[in-house]
């Protein structure tokens, strides 16, 4: 029996409508609550004033510099982490001894909160980009590594034996057997890491004061420019949503060929 639940254009249309209504409702509440005195206007300015502050920010070059800085730290950190994690994951994953040797260490290092490294980052790099990169890389690295390890473990032993019986070289086995199997997992890891990397990039800027949106938020807070602060927070949220959407659609596009039936391994 097919349940008339999904894939119905009328339903999905009304879903989008309801979602838009929800967002409009949020804006309305944010506009009215301060205006009606339900919350102090100094703490939560009306939505229209936040929007005005956002428009004003968007007119300043400083905002765009900060946004670019954040995106550079995010993308560079993510790229380094993905590269290192994929390499490490394939090496560790395809050599059984290494795998069992490193399992406990990975399990120990992974849950260490990356913010523990903030003092270290400050001492090593001060308020440079390096501080942000260190935190972003550390946090994103584990997300990808764990997924790559799952992916390598998922390689069908029969496929591997086949490749060996045809005397594939080690590189050929990795290139033609291991990599295609692990690829969907790599994408999942990248998607998870992309969100984490943004969180850590902004956190580092906020706490350490390295250049970027996070620092601008700290500055706005210190100078009591409350609407500006909210405007910048909205920007970080929108950035997060965009990264999420891009990562998800990218993953789906690239993996359209792959009959992916595995359950997602949540890290």
């Amino acid at each position, binding site marked *: 029996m097919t349940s008339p639940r999904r894939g119905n*254009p*009328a339903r999905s249309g009304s879903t989008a409508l309801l979602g838009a209504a929800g967002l409009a409702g949020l804006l309305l509440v944010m506009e009215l609550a301060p205006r009606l005195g339900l919350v102090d206007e100094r703490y939560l300015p009306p939505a229209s004033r936040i929007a005005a502050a956002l428009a004003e920010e968007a007119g300043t070059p400083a905002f765009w510099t900060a946004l670019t800085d954040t995106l550079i730290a995010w993308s560079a950190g993510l790229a380094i982490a993905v590269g290192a994690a994929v390499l490490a994951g394939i090496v560790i994953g395809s050599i059984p001894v290494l795998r069992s040797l490193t399992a406990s260490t990975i399990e120990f290092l992974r849950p260490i909160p990356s913010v523990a490294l903030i003092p270290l980052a400050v001492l090593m790099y001060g308020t440079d980009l390096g501080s942000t990169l260190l935190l972003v890389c550390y946090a994103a690295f584990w997300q990808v590594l764990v997924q790559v390890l799952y992916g390598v473990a998922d390689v069908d032993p029969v496929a591997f034996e086949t490749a060996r019986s045809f005397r594939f070289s080690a590189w050929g086995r990795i290139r033609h057997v291991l990599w295609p199997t692990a690829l969907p997992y790599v994408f999942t890891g990248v998607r998870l890491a992309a969100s984490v990397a943004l969180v850590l990039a902004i956190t580092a800027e906020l706490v350490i004061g390295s250049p970027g949106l996070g620092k601008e938020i700290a500055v706005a807070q210190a100078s009591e420019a409350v609407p500006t602060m909210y405007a910048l927070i909205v920007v970080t949220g929108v950035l997060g949503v965009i990264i999420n959407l891009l990562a998800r659609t990218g993953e789906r596009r690239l993996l359209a060929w792959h009959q992916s039936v595995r359950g997602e391994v949540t890290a």
Partner: protein
Amino acid sequence: MLEVKGLRKVYRSGNREVEALRDLTFTVDNGELVCLVGPSGCGKTTLLRCVSGLLDPTAGDVRVDGKPVDGPPPGMAVVFQEYGRSLFPWMSVRDNVELPLKQKGVGRARRRQLVEQSLDAVGLTGTASAYPWQLSGGMQQRVAIARAVAYEPQTLLMDEPFAAVDAQTRADLEDLVRELWKRLGVTILFVTHDIDESVYLGQRVVMLSTSPTVVQEELAIDLPDQRDQLTTRADPRFIQLRTRVYEQIQAAKRNAVH
């Protein structure tokens, strides 16, 4: 008595309408075992969901002992086809059987007794503390039957309960249903797409047309009350009856094409 009168169900999605059931009328007397059989996709499941009060019909009504059904009636138990999904995997066999009794407010000692008795009755003595997924498919369906039996229903609805088990298990379970029915005196409405099964089990077979569904024909099964897999299925009368049902189902399919 279970009465289905002028039952009609139309699914609406957007501005498209699908008429699943057109006009169904039949009754099941107290203590009777009636099989509903029809071609695949004939709305058997829709019908059963209407009878069990899980789905509101578009028109017509279902009555149990004269009372209209507008939600799952208290004296009715359902055995679903998808035993793997109908049994709760987070509960042991015992808890699965016991939960409906708890909801009904049955006392602790009596619950114990009912759970034990019903598991014994379906041949699952000693599996009470296992989880359903530790059992084979046939045994899981036995748990689902035990759950229904422990509920002490007056009416038992079975929705293609054996469609997903292998042939040998299926024969065993058919005999189990006959045996429980005779012992407990419940009314059973048994939905199936298997013609032999309907003739073997039922006192009466109600044949359905293809969707939009109407009752194609009703047939009394005048086989001896004592049935078993070997002799009954070899009985010439059994073969006549199953041929009759088969012809009707084929006729129903042909009519649908025109």
